[in-house]
């Protein structure tokens, strides 16, 4: 991805904003997936961290599913590149979308008679409608956990009722039964530990989107009881300001994080700040959604949709609060290992 590609993401955002509600209801349009590919958004592995994050932020501000496709497609190509050149070529090297399945219920490689066979179940996998290949993570291979790249046509996909968010990616259950896997498609386990993750852009963008949508809705909102203009309520005004201040803090920390990441100077403090951005952005969004009362529960409310998607991004393992904060404490205190004591 280049800076031009990041700008392309911002350019796509305007059109994607208009289709976000339909996408959430009916699934991600094939032409949008193609537009993401053409914009270079699946070729992220060589780009600076800031370019990756800013692309996801631009998409996350308006359409969670688009940010998810870009983040997943980019991560898949980066991982395939580390697995083997042959595997990278097979998945299209970023010219097409490749998806990722993580957190299996069970997944095992069996080596016998010179062949390697895969069995496993991944309960919630998104983007299958627009991918030919999937990276299946969390596979037990003897005493190791690895990832495996497989053609989706070899797996069984079934409907999976998913309420969490980013519904436009159409989450499905994926099952592998004695699929033959060539060695060049076996790679290391995906890194899900606390680390700097360009998805932080989607988190910030998602929270900014909540703020924008909430503000628009509140300007026009009349209270269900009493028929008053909600914008005139002092507590509503004050909470809006508090969330705005939260997001301003997030943006300041985010800018510093991008600079440190691009300069190769990220440290435990940068990692801690990333987790802090996520928590603060969530607090800003939570405050606004709660202010909407029962209206905030409605599935068709754009603020609710944007919040659902944000929540999915904020749940990424790389944003783990405990790990990030304890690591910073260890760095300050000069404790090298992560052994625990109360």
């Amino acid at each position, binding site marked *: 991805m280049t800076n031009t590609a990041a700008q392309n993401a911002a350019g796509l955002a305007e059109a994607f904003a208009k289709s976000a509600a339909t996408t959430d209801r009916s699934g991600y349009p094939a032409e949008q997936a193609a537009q993401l590919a053409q914009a270079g958004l699946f070729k992220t592995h060589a780009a600076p961290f800031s370019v990756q994050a800013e692309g996801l932020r631009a998409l996350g501000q308006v359409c969670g599913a688009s940010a998810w496709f870009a983040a997943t497609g980019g991560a898949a190509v980066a991982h395939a590149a580390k697995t083997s050149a042959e595997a990278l070529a097979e998945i299209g090297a970023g010219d097409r979308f490749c998806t990722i399945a993580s*957190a299996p219920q069970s997944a095992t490689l069996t080596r016998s008679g010179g062949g390697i066979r895969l069995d496993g179940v991944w*309960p*919630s996998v998104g983007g299958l409608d627009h991918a030919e290949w999937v990276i299946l993570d969390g596979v037990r291979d003897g005493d190791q956990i690895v990832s495996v790249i497989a053609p989706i046509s070899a797996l069984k996909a079934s409907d999976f009722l998913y309420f969490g968010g980013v519904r436009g990616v159409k989450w499905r259950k994926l099952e592998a039964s004695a699929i033959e896997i060539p060695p060049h498609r076996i790679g290391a386990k995906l890194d899900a530990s606390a680390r700097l993750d360009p998805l932080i852009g989607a988190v910030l963008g998602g929270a900014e989107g909540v703020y924008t949508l909430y503000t628009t809705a509140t300007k026009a909102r009349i209270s269900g009881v009493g028929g008053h203009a909600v914008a005139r*309520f002092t507590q509503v005004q004050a909470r809006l300001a508090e969330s705005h201040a939260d997001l301003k803090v997030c943006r300041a920390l985010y800018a510093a994080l991008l600079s440190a990441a691009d300069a190769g100077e990220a440290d435990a403090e940068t990692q801690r700040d990333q987790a802090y951005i996520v928590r603060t952005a969530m607090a800003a969004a939570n405050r606004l959604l709660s202010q909407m009362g029962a209206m905030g529960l409605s599935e068709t409310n754009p603020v609710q949709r944007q919040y659902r998607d944000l929540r999915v991004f904020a749940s990424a*393992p790389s944003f783990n609060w405990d790990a990030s904060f*304890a690591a910073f404490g260890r760095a300050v205190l000069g404790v090298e290992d992560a052994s625990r004591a109360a």
Partner: protein
Amino acid sequence: MTILATQRGASPSPLDLIAAAEALGPKLRARAAETEARRSLPRETIDDLFAAGLMRYFVPRRLGGYEMDWGVQIQIGRTLARYCASTSWIACVVGSHSAYVARMSPEAQDDVWKDSIDVVISTGSVMRNVSVAEAKGGYILNGRWSFSSGVDHASWVLMRASITNDHRQSYFLVPRSEFTIEDDWYVSGMSGTGSKTVGVKDTFVPAYRVISMTQMMAPNPPGAAVNDSVVSSASFRLFAGSALLGPIWGGAEAVLNEYRALMAQGAAGQDVEDPQCLLRIAEAAAEIATAGRLAEGLIDRQVQAALSAVKVPKAERISNVFERTYSARLCVNGASRLVNSLDTAAISSDAPIQRYYRDLLGMVQQIGVNWDRNMINGAKAMFDLPTDIPDLNAD
């Protein structure tokens, strides 16, 4: 909770009903995902609640019900919410509507329960284009009402409305044959309550099936002529809002229980040997337990006030509003502390904690525990300013 010991040798006893709720729990938990997806309680769940007697607690004794004191349903609601918040809401909050009917005229009571005492009575409180015209022997009702929980299974709906040119509100009791249901309940939490919009068009409601809000809330309403429980005869304002606390408390406990299970399983980032996780679960458990104690104390005082028929001082009424609202907030704080520390378990459909949490967030949007409304109005009452909560305006 002292209320459970004051039921005058009833059979079944309140503890019997709570045990019945507990026994239903695993079945409800197994159905919880389906309940959410259907956006309504499955028929078999309603039948299970009826069979266990869990909707009879306020039905008059003279008609075969249990006519118990306030608070029983809250403990039932708490118990059920540990398994399925939507079922808890129907059993506790919607089930409490029997008390409204028990305060209405004996004829209205007979209409509702003449064929069966196992009946769902829904309400319509949030009005949309409602009008009421006087007619011979009653009223002609038109309009729509949002958020009518459990209405798919309701035989009756109590619709709140004002007679045209009169700002005072009344309840109008309307049978299933007279109202329509709009399938508009698509929400992120409490989906299983099926709180859809109901509507009526030129529906005649006889006068005996109408009760003014003033009569409904005051001591000795029409129903007190034939029912003698405090729920049927005492000031109904005493109990305002507290029924919500059972499902909310139990809903927070459900989150706590699920988080504890995740820790015990060693889910990613949730480790029983990590002091951060231990501190987190301890703090959340303390918050949720404190919320429960606050709720129990409030309900005990409400019941004692009803039994003694002593006027509750204004300062205590204000405090009651603060306490029920703060109890709900403590529940959310405790649950949020846990859920915000999770990664994929917080969003994956096959992890029940995410549904319990979404349900909890849905429940606290109910106006009875709405933070801004209750705290601001309670504080206004401290300065004798007019409020939107009628019970706080009286001296």
